[in-house]
């Protein structure tokens, strides 16, 4: 999902060279990819997710109060560029690199993916350093907070990728692909989330300047309202209360309780929805594979203790734990992602455990063990590739449920305050009165996104099911 080309692309490319000319790829992954891409559910689901990614990347281009270029008081300048945040820049640049890399057809997919991951990590690292610096300055009095620690951890991760990726790329195709994918996940983590403290922007200055006829000309984005533009000037300028207006031409989805444009908030909220789904599920899958793998490989005592852990975490309702943690530790998007991830590993662990319990009896695993292969190599290089594919199905459903969880929390008033989120908009629908836009659009967005991931999951399940192969 982090790459905007359709996800089955790597699956379609056969790994045993020369497959491109054959009508049906021989490799298992290739066949599954073909079956997957052939289903309408997968196409519709992926199309929606790709749309969301595009909206997330181009959000500032689509909806912003800042004119791209304007001539005011006889000077030409670009307020839009001046107010571009670090995340906006990383997203746009990284998307541009992806587009450029798509052109180089001759270079293998793995190498292009690795190059892209490296460049994105570099961009993210630069932006994260700047965020950390700003964070340090703004919180100088009460010391670095939890967010700062997380940013530093991410910086370390990014640094590691910047170093390891070129080395691994020299080593060979598989390693290149793996490190590239991990790099994507960590680098992508920064993509959607902005940690730099919000700047104090006066959004109404452009409208006021235009009204005062100080502006010769200006080029505005298609939707000339930023998500946090509460139109404080509307009351004095037009005499209309900008709050809770039903959809009109200027505000296609109306305005919210604070007077901000709902469509603009919806577009910018795609970032949080995508980020929470990917990162929370990424953490859950990693933890699940690790714990489940150890349980399945060692069996016996490790398994018994692991199963108790599994029971403990499946007995605590995630939503309750999250509500509690938000209440006790404060609102924090990062913490929310981590907690959804940390409590969500159970399903994956059970699955991998069952798979590994079967695999450990296999001859090739026994042989690897007898050869003195190190444990991590047995676990991750020999056993994991044979048991991991169905986890993708679970992960797709996991993303859907992570998005649901975030929107539920925001709905209950436990989400972020300033940052736009679908759940938070839906929460206002209860008090919206005539503003039917709030009742329908945020709910529809959550529904469609969850539906899309569920469709993708279903399609993957069908594609992986050997009984469905003709």
């Amino acid at each position: 999902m982090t790459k905007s080309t359709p996800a089955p692309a790597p699956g379609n490319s056969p790994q045993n060279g020369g497959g491109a000319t054959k009508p049906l790829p021989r490799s298992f992954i290739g066949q599954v990819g073909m079956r997957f891409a052939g289903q309408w559910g997968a196409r519709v689901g992926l199309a929606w997710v790709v749309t969301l990614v595009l909206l997330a990347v181009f959000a500032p281009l689509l909806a912003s109060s800042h004119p791209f270029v304007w001539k005011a008081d006889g000077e030409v300048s670009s307020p839009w560029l001046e107010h571009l945040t670090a995340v906006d820049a990383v997203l746009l640049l990284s998307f541009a690199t992806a587009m450029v890399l798509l052109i180089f057809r001759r270079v293998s997919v793995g190498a292009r993916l690795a190059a892209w991951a490296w460049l994105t990590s570099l961009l993210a690292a630069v932006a994260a350093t700047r965020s950390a610096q700003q964070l340090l300055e703004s919180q100088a009095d009460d010391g670095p907070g939890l967010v700062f620690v997380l940013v530093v951890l991410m910086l370390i991760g990014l640094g590691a990728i910047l170093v390891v990726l070129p080395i691994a790329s020299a080593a060979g195709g598989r390693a290149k692909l793996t490190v590239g994918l991990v790099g994507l996940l960590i680098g992508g983590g920064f993509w959607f989330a902005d940690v730099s403290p919000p700047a104090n922007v006066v959004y109404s200055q452009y409208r006021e300047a235009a009204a005062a006829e100080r502006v010769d000309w200006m080029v505005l984005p298609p939707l000339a309202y930023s998500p946090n533009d509460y139109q404080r000037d509307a009351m004095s300028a037009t005499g209309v209360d900008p709050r809770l207006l039903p959809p009109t031409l200027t505000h296609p989805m109306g305005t919210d309780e604070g007077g901000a444009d709902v469509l603009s908030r919806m577009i910018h909220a795609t970032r949080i929805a995508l980020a929470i789904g990917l990162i929370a599920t990424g953490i859950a899958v990693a933890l699940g594979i690790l714990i489940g793998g150890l349980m399945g490989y060692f069996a016996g005592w490790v398994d018994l203790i692991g199963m108790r852990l599994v029971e403990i975490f499946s007995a605590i309702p995630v939503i309750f734990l999250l509500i509690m943690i938000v209440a006790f530790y404060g609102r924090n998007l990062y913490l929310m992602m981590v907690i959804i991830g940390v409590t969500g590993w159970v399903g994956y662990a059970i699955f991998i455990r069952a798979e590994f319990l079967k695999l450990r009896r296999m001859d090739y695993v026994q042989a690897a063990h007898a050869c003195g292969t190190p444990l991590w190599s047995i676990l991750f290089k020999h056993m994991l590739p044979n048991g991991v594919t169905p986890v993708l199905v679970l992960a797709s459903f996991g993303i859907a449920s992570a998005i649901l969880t975030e929107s539920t929390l925001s709905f209950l008033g436990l989400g972020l305050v300033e940052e736009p989120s679908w759940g938070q908009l839906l929460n206002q629908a209860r008090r919206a009165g005539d503003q039917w836009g709030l009742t329908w659009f945020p709910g529809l967005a959550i529904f469609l996104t969850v539906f899309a991931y569920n469709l993708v999951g279903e399609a993957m399940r069908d594609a992986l099911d050997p009984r469905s192969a003709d």
Partner: protein
Amino acid sequence: MLSYILRRLLLLFPTLLGVLAVVFFVMAFSPGGFGGTSLNAEGAQTEGEDARRAQKALERRYGLDLPKAAQFGRWLNQVSPIGFRMSGDLKLSEEERAEVEAVFAGQPYAARDAELSRLRLIVETIAGYTDQEPLELAERLRADLEQPAAVLDYFSEIDASLSESETAELIASVDGLKEADGSEGDLLRVQKKLLQVLAFEASGRSRIRYDRPAFKAPDLGQTLRGRDVGELLLERVPVTLLLNLLAIPLIYVVAITSGLYAARHKGGWFDVGSGAAFLGLWSVPTIWAGVLLITYFANEQYLRWFPAAGLHDLQASGMAFLPSWNEGGFERGWLLDTLWHLVLPVLCMVYGGFAVMSKVMRGAMLDNLSADFVRTARAKGVAEGGVLWRHAFRNSVLPLITMVSGILPALFVGSFVVETIFSINGLGKLGVEAAFQKDRELVMATTLIGGLLGLTSELIRDLCYAIADPRVSYD
């Protein structure tokens, strides 16, 4: 089988303990700690003396001066039916009370009844806490009050955590007494001051008495507002149970019928239609469904068919139980009123379940209908009804049984959201409120109930599985 149940029951306790520990330590290590103590009832920041006092009272109630693990142990001891007694639970008998009060009777600092009973409470608490004879302690305290300097030792005896300024203030007032001419008025003032501080420091001070574990009534503690948690739960749990008891059978009935029908007429209009509809329904977020239902079916603007909030009408307590006709026309009665209020919340809880369960039912039915044993049955000439119900259906129910365990905790979670949207005072809403108020006892009690519910439903699942499928045996 019996040994299996026993083993599972034994394993249930460590798991439950783990659940409680996770939740407890998440709370204990939070930077703000328990209780919104820095805010008073009006939501304003309390300052200085008030805030410190509130914090201290909280510390004593929860034993916050202990290490965190010991706090957890203390809570476990409190809720367990077998455990050590707390010194604060040891109350004096009527005669002992009278005797203790008699010791102080007639003293100038115990002139009023309130002062006398305060002294008695001080003696009661300190005696329990330090394991002394109450009467001896009373005598000693009376003697010590004549030389106020000696009273300062009592504070260390009960591990009171006085701040430095307080200690200095007390010492200064005692020292000031020495320098003054020792007139009656001064002495009385200092005595009263000491007793006031001592009473505050002693109140609620309690520690585990490690004498002999005994059976006792499990105590879930009190909420921050001072209500008994057990009582509150008894009030709230039936509401959530009612919601779930209505929801679960509804889910099963609808899922089984539609699943059966869809499998029976595979590829027909119902099969295709319900398949698509359920796939969509499954993805509709509960919060959106709730908002839509309230907006369009409980709103003056559109249709005001159902109430938007609560479980009863305001007048419900005055209604007859069953609907009736009287001179005022039709009166719906308590039962119908409750059901009327429950329509939207239950609808909100069940639609997701329909989707999943009927899909599972259809899949299992299809698998079985194409299985060899069904073909054999047909070949033997078993009637179609018999094939469907006795052969295929019985085998298709297994996955539905497995899903009970998934559905129980899921409904419990669902009730968090549904109860909050529809303002129903059930367990879920209680849990959300408890977390918001940082109320430790309430959060732990909710976790205990939720955890027990989840774990027992898993156990029941496995047992049902063995009963429904003779091939499954756990021995």
